[in-house]
């Protein structure tokens, strides 16, 4: 079986943004949600989420905040910024355009 392709790696940002657009989450919850929604198609190790999250934060697309959670603990919650929301919309549209084009091409070759 081939490794998760570069294409998938590159779209990790997009997925993270999309999930965070629904509600602010901390890292672990995000990783769980990612597994839930993508099934096992995306083999993302839990850890690789963090460089991605920090990069998005540095770019100003998401922001982080420490909030208390159950049992007297606290966790770093990530949420989308307005900038990130706009970026997400743009990138999602791009993605749809490209994937539509690619699947169109693929269908062509099948005929």
């Amino acid at each position, binding site marked *: 079986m081939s490794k998760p392709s570069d294409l998938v790696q590159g779209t990790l940002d997009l997925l993270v943004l999309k999930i965070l657009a629904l509600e602010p989450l901390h890292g672990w919850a995000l990783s769980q949600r990612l597994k839930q929604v993508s099934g096992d198609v995306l083999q993302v190790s839990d850890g690789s989420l963090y*460089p991605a999250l*920090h990069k998005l934060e*540095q770019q*100003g697309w998401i922001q982080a905040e420490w909030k208390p959670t159950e049992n007297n603990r606290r966790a*770093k919650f990530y949420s989308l910024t307005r900038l990130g929301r706009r970026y997400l919309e743009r990138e999602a549209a791009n993605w749809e355009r490209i994937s539509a084009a690619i699947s169109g091409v693929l269908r062509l070759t099948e005929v």
Partner: protein
Amino acid sequence: MRLEHWVYTIPLRLRALFHRNRLNAELDEELRDHLERQIEFNRAGGMSPEKARLVALRQLGNPALLRDQTRATWNWNGLEQFTHDLRIGIRTLSRTPGFTLVAILVMALGIGANVALFTVVRSVLLKPLPYSDPEGLELIYEADPGHPHVHPWLPVDAGSFWEWQRSTQSLAQMALVSPFQGYNVSGEGGKLPEVVEAAWCTHNFFSLLGVQPTLGRSFTPDDDRADAAATAMITANFWKRRYASDPTIAGKTIWLDAKPYTIIGVLPSTFVYSGAFGGAADQIWTPVRHEAPASLLHTYGDHEFLAVARLAPGVSLATLASRIDALQKQIKSAHPEPAVHPGAIGRTMLDDAVQDYKTPLYALLGATGCVLLIACMNVAGLLVARAASRSKEFAIRAALGGGRMRLIRERLIESLLLSASGGALGLLLAWAALGWLVHARHDMNRVEAIHFDGMAAAFTLAVVFLCTLFSGLISAHGSLRGNILGGLQEGSRSHSGGRSRSLLRRLLLAAEVGLTVVLLVGAGLLLKSFKHLRSSDLGVPVDNVLTLHFELPGARYKQDDQKFAFFDQLIARVRALPGVSSAGLVSAAPGEGWSGDDLMSIVEHPPLAKGQGLDFMLRGADPGYFSAIGLPILKGRTFTEDERGKRANVVLISRGAAQQYFPGEDPMGKHLKMIDEGGVWTIIGVVGDVRWHVAQPPYPTLYWPIYGNGYGFGTVVVRSAHDVESMAVPVQKIVAQLDPDLPVSNVMTLREAIGKSTIDSEFDSILVLAFAIIALVLAAAGIYGVLAYLVTQRLVEFGIRLALGAQRSTLLGHLLLDGLKPALAGLLIGLPASAAVVRLIRSILYETEPLDLVVYGAVTGLLLFVALAACFVPAWYASRLDPMRTLRTE
């Protein structure tokens, strides 16, 4: 978008820079939190604790690697890139040390001059006075709006002041001060006798300013009475100098004018009184009601004082001034004598101290600003030229994907390096310049407030930043505009190098030349004004004349006979000195100042209306004065030896007085009557006009015998064939023999005295001239640079043209014209700009019109000459080319 981006990311960047440890800790905590949650999750799924932990760790991946990868995303990337660019910049600049050195020096000059001037302007003009709550302090003057030719700010008489003080108690506290007094301090305990400048003040003066003595106490109402014991306060300087900071000084005795005074307090070293009428050098302060004669304390006609007011909360200066103005009008109607002034005006104490320096200092600041702008343009021009020679490199880098921003950043960093080094050097220059200025201009009010402080440093940083942006962006704009590929194509065979680029440099040059013209015109006008001032005719020959001033203390010289005896012996011994060709005595020598005036009427004329009078400036003189100073007696005779004491009722008047007060008649034998005090004097002669101040026109003057008429002071005037300075010591020795306790002051030649009163003008004109010359050199270098660059760019073109038979002289003319164009454009901008700008310095020009055609003509000529000279070298080089060699090198 951009802005919002920064809003989100700047705090993160700052944290990444300054709180790296906390960020690391937070990352650890985040990962730990993840792990714990995963372990819990795994255990909830039924795993053993051990297994749950192992699985969670496996799922997470290598934590060390994770941390590294994450940290890489928040690396302080900008800084890293910046240091990288900085290294490249330093390397590029050090490859051309000549260029770098010149650029840094140019920047240092511009920045240094600006920092120095900024510091002076801020310290002198803007910094609050060293009193508590100085904003509420005002000076009230009298005014005579009906006589606009009179100085607008007139000192105050005590009579009016007491009335002001009484009726404005709800608006302000007021204090009276007379800062132009002086004492002979007698020698005691082996110290030398000396003359010190001093001030009288009311007892509330220091408490009004909020000044507390560092030793002893301040004046109380009990000190400030005519029958009180004599008391004095001394300044910290005087205390240090004369008493070696004696901590037990309070209560000791000082002998002033041969009378004992008790020193009750020492003023703090920060205290200085600097007003428009001087006072910064006052070292002894005494209570006015004890010191001033009773008549002076009650008159409305003798203006020996200044009024200081501290406004009550909520009261404005305008309110107070208009109240006092109304009051003064009432006083005038109650006392219609001519010497009583009909109005009053006020200004803040700070304005009072520095008003006279505002125009010159702002003019100088403007000049340094121009120099800096020119320096920036020059550096920008140099950078553009360098960029032009590297255009192929830039084109290749751009073609290989080098970001445009990156290229711009490199230009900016180059100019930052130049500006910052220039700034550092400039800071040193400014520091040295300020040291020199404080030394050279200690006559200036508030010069003691000049300090190099944090604001100066902040200003330097701001200037460096602006210079960086200015020259960096211009050069970036010049080198990166338009099609980058064009650089490659154009560069492949440089037949006629970049037109657009040289256009930018020409525009810069034209602006440079324009600014230079403004500076040159300003400098020319100030120099001309200074020259007029220096050559203005005092009315007497000024070479080889020495003056020495002395004041006989009234306590020791009570009788007229004692004074006459002193005068007689002094003048006889001075005349007998070998080398002295003539000597005389006068109350105030030409150029020595106003020194008193009074109103007279002419007995033979119809009586004047009440409140009218003819104003004469008063001078006491001895019979030999006129010949000693070289003042021609136009009519009549000088005094005789026995016209003294009760027989001293004869006067000579100046030609101006004769023309003004005796139009079309002979003043000889007429009689003058003093309006206030009576007494009649017979006119026995007419003498030439002299100036009482170099920059002021002669005033109608009256000379009467110094033997009598109340004189207890005088200026010895000594004329010698040569080396009159060498007479100073022998004359002082004579004074010391006559009275060992009597100090001599203002020992200087007439020339020195003129120099002293023209130092302002000299200072301003020489500084502006220096700046103008710097600007001219920079502009010339700029013109030379542009043309030299153009010539090297177009060598092949010239080679071809010469090979095809072009005349060398045509080529030379063509190139000269090319180089002169920016200079001509600059002149076209600069001349009208100068005409507009120099109006601002009209007030410091003496007998010089702002539109002086000679100056404008000279500036135009000089500029064209310099521009031509700067163009000539490269043009000549181009016209001497060997076409074959040039074509081969390509």
